[in-house]
């Protein structure tokens, strides 16, 4: 059933200070609305007072420093795809943005919204995990930064308080050449939510893995960084035996389930095959 319009209010914040004041008073943020409005249209949106944040300059800029590229939390998937420096340094994030919905949703949907909506099936979180992103949260009592790898603590649970606003996502710029890999497996190419979304980056020198990060979507209650597999591979020379070992380990580290989109068994096998494809490409 539809929501009753008179029960709801929405104010577009004139500036960040107003947004934070309203959040402190119990209002909730709305950005592109591509998730919240679906709930609203179905009569399932739990919040009655919403503050619009899409036009705040702090949330819409993409800024550069020698050490990081910083994205405002309300930067859209379209803006991510059109940014040439992101494309050259963080291509997996651009690819994830292109996988998320069609053109209309990419024009409205935001990176910060994708993070705080906290769907384990979202496509941008695995990219942010392998790039070791940092989140900046702000409230009337100050701001703080947290590593994205520590942000999701359980299904739809996050290290943030209701009055805090996610303002920025910092991507540390990598100084060295990385092998980068991402593949989404879904029912169709367009508009389909992932059955498995696999992302990895590695620093490799003639089959010796100096450094590797692997993260997946849709295989656990949270976007999952596979630290045990990373540990087993770092500082090792790749061999077919090591790849077979990594396949076994990743099947133990993920926690896939059966749901409307796929089965645990299929997700596990696909995850192992994608890991093999990536590691095979490094040999």
């Amino acid at each position, binding site marked *: 059933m539809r929501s009753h319009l008179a029960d709801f209010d929405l104010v577009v914040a004139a500036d960040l200070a107003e947004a934070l004041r309203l959040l402190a008073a119990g209002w909730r943020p709305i950005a592109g609305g*591509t998730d919240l409005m679906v709930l609203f249209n179905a009569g399932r949106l739990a919040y009655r007072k919403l503050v619009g944040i899409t036009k705040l300059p702090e949330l819409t800029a993409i800024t550069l420093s020698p050490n990081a590229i910083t994205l405002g939390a309300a930067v859209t998937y379209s803006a991510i795809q059109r940014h040439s420096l992101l494309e050259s340094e963080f291509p997996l994030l651009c690819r994830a943005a292109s996988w998320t919905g*069609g053109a209309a*949703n990419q024009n*409205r949907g935001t990176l910060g919204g994708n993070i705080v909506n906290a769907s384990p099936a979202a496509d941008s979180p695995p990219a942010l995990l392998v790039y070791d992103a940092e989140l900046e949260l702000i409230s009337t009592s100050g701001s703080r930064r947290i590593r994205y790898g520590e942000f999701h603590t359980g299904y739809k649970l996050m290290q943030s308080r209701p009055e805090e606003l996610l303002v920025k996502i910092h991507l540390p710029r990598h100084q060295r050449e990385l092998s980068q890999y991402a593949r989404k497996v879904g029912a169709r190419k*367009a508009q389909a939510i992932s059955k498995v979304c696999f992302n990895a980056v590695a620093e490799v020198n003639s089959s010796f893995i100096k450094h590797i990060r692997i993260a997946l979507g849709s295989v656990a209650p949270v976007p999952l960084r596979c630290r045990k597999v990373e540990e087993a591979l770092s500082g090792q020379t790749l061999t077919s035996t090591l790849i077979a070992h990594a396949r076994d380990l990743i099947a133990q580290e993920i926690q896939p389930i059966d749901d409307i989109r796929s089965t645990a068994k299929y997700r596990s096998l696909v995850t192992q095959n994608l890991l093999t494809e990536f590691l095979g490409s490094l040999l």
Partner: protein
Amino acid sequence: MANAQIALTVNGAAHTLTVPAMKRLLDVLREDLRLTGTKEGCGEGECGACSVILDGELVNSCLIPAKQADGAQLVTIEDSGLGAIQQAFAETGAAQCGICTPGMVMASFALLARNAKPSLEQIREGLAGNICRCTGYQKIFDAVVKVSRQSS
């Protein structure tokens, strides 16, 4: 009470309206402005039937609260500048039941505005957010190709 005064420019005409802040832009267009060319399909941003152009960008109007569109420039299927695309849709037989057609035309317009000569792959990608229940995609793609060949 959650009414808001909003200003919209729709197909070049300025409007000031008092509507519930969370009323969907789709319903503002259809009910308050009587522009019923924009259709509701799924109501959850999956099908693209309600596509309009907001400040130069293709959007699903079912997902936009009225207050968030305050001050926006909108282009809808009723705009007089869409004739060439509409003509091509008619000539290639790109409409069957017609419910997806306004959204398909708007998505085609948005695509061609950015890329006057899209490849077939780019057309498929540009229209990926628009679903045709009659599955008449090929003739829709043909229509976009036809328009792109007409432009110099």
